[in-house]
């Protein structure tokens, strides 16, 4: 703008100068504003990372002292969790087994349902049903876990106890079903996004080669969306393993290694939530619970890293040679 004004000899000198000054000023203020905004964002990002770092630091500070009393392998693989006995035993193996088993079982339930729901919503359902289903799944995702826990406790548990003639309805199966209900929205909505992102050209190519709708879904759409779907499954698992309220309410709470699917278990988050209130401050029990938190932290971290790795790997290869 200034250059144009300057190149025209007809323009009087005075206004020209003013324009240059003004636009310079404007450029300056906008530059300053840019810098301020940039730093503000950097500051906010830094604060949240710092807070996270402090939490992790705190977790380690409170958890690590337990390893002055017992070794890491005794802690991880010890099969007895009697933190209040004398002498206490801090083996969290039964808790780890409890967590793993309810997570795996819940995924066995949630993956097929979540994936089928995603396929149905993104590829098959007519527009109206699609909208309805999507809002139902969103609703499910927003359901407070205590409500699900309550449902498992007062409806599913008594029903299971009676139907299968069990000592208790609060057990692995109950917890897994409830966790699956929590994981389904995660799995289905992320998978649906991945399926939606599959280019239309691939599907058209498939139809033009004489494939039916189901062949196109199974051989083109799902393989092309596989990285997103794997990410969905892993994030769903991460959600299930970290979930506290549901397992606290419906897993039964027995800190023994289960022998069958209808046994009670005490997954790690449930153990922490239930016992933290009664563990004396800075006691061995207190430190052991924090150390359990560290274990949980690493498991979730691993899940997220794997999810990240999968989505990156597939991205680099352009969906690869599936």
């Amino acid at each position, binding site marked *: 703008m200034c250059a144009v004004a300057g190149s025209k000899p007809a323009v009087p000198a005075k206004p020209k100068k003013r324009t240059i000054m003004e636009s310079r000023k404007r450029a300056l203020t906008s530059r300053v504003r840019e810098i301020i905004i940039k730093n503000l964002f950097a500051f906010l990002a830094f604060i949240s990372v710092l807070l996270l770092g402090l939490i992790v630091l705190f977790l380690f500070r409170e958890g690590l002292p337990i390893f002055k009393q017992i070794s890491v392998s005794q802690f991880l693989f010890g099969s007895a969790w009697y933190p209040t006995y004398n002498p206490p035993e801090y083996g969290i193996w039964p808790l780890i087994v409890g967590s793993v088993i309810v997570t795996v079982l819940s995924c066995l339930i949630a993956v097929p349902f979540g994936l089928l729901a995603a396929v149905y919503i993104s590829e098959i359902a007519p527009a109206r049903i699609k909208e309805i289903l999507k809002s139902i799944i969103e609703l499910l995702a927003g359901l407070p876990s205590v409500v699900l826990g309550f449902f498992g406790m007062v409806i599913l548990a008594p029903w299971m106890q009676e139907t299968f003639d069990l000592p208790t309805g609060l057990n692995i199966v109950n917890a897994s079903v409830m966790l699956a209900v929590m994981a389904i929205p995660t799995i289905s909505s992320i998978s649906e996004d991945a399926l939606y992102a599959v*280019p239309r*050209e*691939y599907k*058209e*190519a*498939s*139809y*033009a*080669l*004489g*494939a*039916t709708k189901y*062949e196109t879904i199974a*051989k*083109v759409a799902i*393989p*092309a969306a596989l990285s997103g779907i794997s990410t969905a499954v892993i994030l769903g698992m991460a959600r299930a393993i970290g979930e506290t309220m549901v397992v606290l309410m419906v897993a039964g709470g027995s800190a023994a290694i289960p022998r069958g699917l209808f046994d009670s278990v005490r997954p790690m988050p449930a153990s922490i939530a239930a016992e933290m209130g009664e563990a004396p401050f800075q006691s061995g029990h207190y430190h052991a619970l924090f150390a359990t938190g560290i274990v949980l932290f690493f498991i979730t971290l691993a899940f997220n890293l794997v999810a990240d790795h999968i989505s990156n790997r597939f991205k680099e*290869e*352009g*969906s*690869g*040679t*599936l």
Partner: protein
Amino acid sequence: MIIQTKNVDFFYGAFRALTDVTLDFKKNRVTALIGPSGCGKSTLLRLLNRMNDLIDGTRVEGEILFEGQNIYAPNADPVEIRQRIGMVFQKPNPFPKSIFNNITYAPKLAGIRDRGEIEALVEESLKRAVLWDEVKDILTKSAMTLSGGQQQRLCIARALAMKPDVILMDEPTSALDPISTAKIEELIDTLKKHYTIIIVTHNMQQAARISEYTGFFYMGKLIEFNVTEKIFTNPDAKQTEDYITGRFG
């Protein structure tokens, strides 16, 4: 006469994209469809293998006969029709799979399992598409690593592996450089011995070079259909002449 359209009208919802199109496509000949952008060439092409079925809210009137059978009859199976009438798209669209698996996609759907037969088919299709020498050592690599022109020839090979009778091509060279374009034009020339080819193109020289018959469309109507030479030297309609001499469109 392999495909005939009779008084075909086509609607996207309320919008009428084709009006009263009556046209005969001859067997083992190359027919070019030309006309300004938006005149309905792609729409007609996609009607011939029922690809427009995939778009919601469309409607066809009139008849389209493939070997004498109306492909829009209630008992006609679109999947079977698409197996016999292959299609190559404007933008190369290989699957994100290996070169080998791209070619075997249709044959495997058709139930061919025998390894030897499949390998022979891959080689034959790639040779017909004049791609074999370039890819014979990298069959297991992803098709995405090929160049645009190679990808387009792969798409042609993929359609050939289905053993169709007709190949529809929608501006197959518009995304390609002159060398790849020349290769594909040569390829079309060799393919017409075995296949009926219907090609949409914006390139007048291309239509003149490769086709035996040409149809000129304008605003959803077939203005003129004749032997290519006639269309390009002495067209009957004034609009055709204006278009091919570049006075409009």
